[in-house]
């Protein structure tokens, strides 16, 4: 089985490629990259006018499977991924039951293989039951396919426990992903603390709740020499802490979400529960800092924190609405928006959603060098379209971008050479 992707502009930051090259795929792998490859017997995909990239990687996704399939499952979630041009994703362990044991890890991997439309890399729990008390069996989980460890949604409160988690995970070469939040400073807040929370009469979450924990975890990474990955940085201070830590050689990486570089807490006005997430939407100064962090390389990945919720869980009073928004299907256009606004070059932008998250997770993806698995996304960068939440592939509709005009989308997504999505 041969496929030839013809006449596209190949942007493959891992291999420093940005030129018009054809890609010949044989048996699910990249066989050859060259201008004007002769099609021969291969099926030809005409990519003229399109950008061709390694399949996108979203390293922060909640698939809700097992246990919360009314929000999302592995089938719908990976279908949403494919529709967004995402071929690989890392799924957070806060399913029900949580992914703190090999049985859940195996279930996720096998269901994704058999019925999914994207590669799924599970993130295991740091502690059993995400309770922060006893380490999960990270060695076995890593062996079973977990690529990192996180108690996402719940910070590890105890400093000693986090220290041991970093040391232990490092034994097996896996990063610990920190959901950096000092709960005693969150203190029941439900949006960013600032003039908007004061005006709306909603209890605020101050930036220091994030910065304090980011600082602690960075110092623990420095102490232990282990790899810390800070999830969804949302504050100016967190970006600066990571920047400084990198400057002194600490093994720290971090990610930012599209909503944290596109929206401020102004979006909450009108008590919009689709603008409620954790960490919360912050101020313009924070948005600017995240953009600067993406531009100067401080931030290593753009990840969506795709967090599907049923409409019943959002269609309530703001204070009791659940946190989070869906993101897989808006990752690409919102990332390209940063290119349009000249915050990032196209190569930088694609690197943030391909090779750089791949490197963090240690997965062999995000590159189209000959011999690589042919996970490929074909992008029409100029297509203007309007997001209609009702049309999302995800089971859930919770997005603050509903009705927004976007530019650029995936027109075709290939997983190991096979088309899993076509627009």
């Amino acid at each position, binding site marked *: 089985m041969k496929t030839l992707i013809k006449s596209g502009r190949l942007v493959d930051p891992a291999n420093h490629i940005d030129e018009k090259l054809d890609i010949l795929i044989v048996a699910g792998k990249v066989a050859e990259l060259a201008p004007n490859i002769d099609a021969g017997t291969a099926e030809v995909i005409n990519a003229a006018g399109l950008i061709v990239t390694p399949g996108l990687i979203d390293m922060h996704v909640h698939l809700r499977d097992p246990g919360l399939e009314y929000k999302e499952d592995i089938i719908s979630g990976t279908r949403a991924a494919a529709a967004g041009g995402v071929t690989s994703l890392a799924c957070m362990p806060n399913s029900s039951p949580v992914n703190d044991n090999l049985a859940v890890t195996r279930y996720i991997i096998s269901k994704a293989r058999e019925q999914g439309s994207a590669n799924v890399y599970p993130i295991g729990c740091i502690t059993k039951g995400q309770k922060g008390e006893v380490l999960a069996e990270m060695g076995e989980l890593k062996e079973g396919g977990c690529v990192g460890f996180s108690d996402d949604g719940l910070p590890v409160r105890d400093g000693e426990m986090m220290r041991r988690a970093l040391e232990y995970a490092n034994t097996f070469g896996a990063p610990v992903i920190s959901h950096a939040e000092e709960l005693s400073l969150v203190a029941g807040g439900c949006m960013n*603390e*600032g*003039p*908007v*929370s*004061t*005006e*709306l*009469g*909603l*209890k*605020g979450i101050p930036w220091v709740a994030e910065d304090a924990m980011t600082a602690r975890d960075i110092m623990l990474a420095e102490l232990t020499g282990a790899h810390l990955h800070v999830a969804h940085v949302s504050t100016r201070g967190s970006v600066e802490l990571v920047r400084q830590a990198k400057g002194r050689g600490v093994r720290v990486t971090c990610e930012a979400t599209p909503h944290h570089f596109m929206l401020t807490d102004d979006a909450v006005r*009108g*008590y919009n529960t689709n603008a409620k997430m954790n960490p919360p939407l912050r101020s313009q100064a924070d948005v600017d800092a995240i953009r600067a962090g993406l531009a100067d390389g401080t931030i290593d990945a753009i990840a969506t924190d795709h967090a599907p919720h049923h409409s*019943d869980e959002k*269609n*309530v*009073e*703001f*204070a*009791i609405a659940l946190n989070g928004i869906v993101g897989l299907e808006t990752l690409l256009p919102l990332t390209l928006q940063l290119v349009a606004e000249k915050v990032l070059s196209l190569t930088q932008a694609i690197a943030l959603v391909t090779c750089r998250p791949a490197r963090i997770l240690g997965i062999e993806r995000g590159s189209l060098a000959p011999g690589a698995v042919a996970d490929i996304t074909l992008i029409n960068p100029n297509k203007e379209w309007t997001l209609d939440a009702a049309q999302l592939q995800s089971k859930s509709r919770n997005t603050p971008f509903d009705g927004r005009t976007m530019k650029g989308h995936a027109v075709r997504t290939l997983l190991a050479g096979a088309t899993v999505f076509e627009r």
Partner: protein
Amino acid sequence: MDFQQKHILGIENLTAEEITFILDSAESFKEISTRSIKKVPTLRGKTIINLFFEASTRTRTSFEIAGKRLSADTVNISASGSSVVKGETLEDTARNIEAMRPDIIVMRHNASGACHYLAERLDCSVINAGDGMHEHPSQALLDAFTIRQHKGRIEGLTVAIVGDITHSRVVRSNIYCLNKLGARVRIAGPGTMLPPGIERLGCQVFSNLEDAIRDADCVMMLRIQRERQGASLIPSVREYARFFGLSEEKLRLAKADAIVMHPGPVNRGVEMASSVVDGPQNVILEQVENGVAVRMALLYLVSGGETLSHD
């Protein structure tokens, strides 16, 4: 003028003209409560539901009496004993109530934004009787009415509001209302009770009561919730009273003819000394009396009452 608002969700989205119109309308309703037969047929055949998810005596009774004096049928629903405890969502509760075809729902709820939520989903009028820490528009209107009654105007006055600013919906509505009517607003409270960015709503922030009330025309004291003691906002009610309570002596810093207000219920000896509560400058009971007139005006105006004939 033609009053176009279907709902009263907050002062923030009312214009100065609309506020003045409400206050003027209240003037003409006030007289009804002084008659021997305190009832006019203005809202006969209308159904008003007071949907209260938080305990309230004053506000709920005031709205109920206001409705009854206008001949509306009023029904009170309180959260305890309602379907809320059975886990029904606010939307479902509201839709079930609306199915009984009320004309106005007056709601108090502990969640900020709950009245906006309701107004977006229902066809009937919604009046906010206090939502979380957000707004309490009828309170601000009755406060403005009371100030105007005593001072003859609001423009150019200095109003000091002292207490737990963070958790107060009364403050937010009052800041909007007084600003729109041309008064200067000062606020004061301990640092733990001053929310960030409050000055952007239109007020000057003080960290001590004395500076805030100096030469003020009105001093409005807020109720201190005793449970705040445990939440590390104040070390003790005793210390709070010492620094932020209004004594007779401190009151002398305000203008000699300053009026003292309180949205109630008062904690005697905490935010106000008993001698101030009972003193000559207090207008607290007038606020309560005016509350009925202002709420009659609100019920009347959101009903789209064409003529102001209530005889």
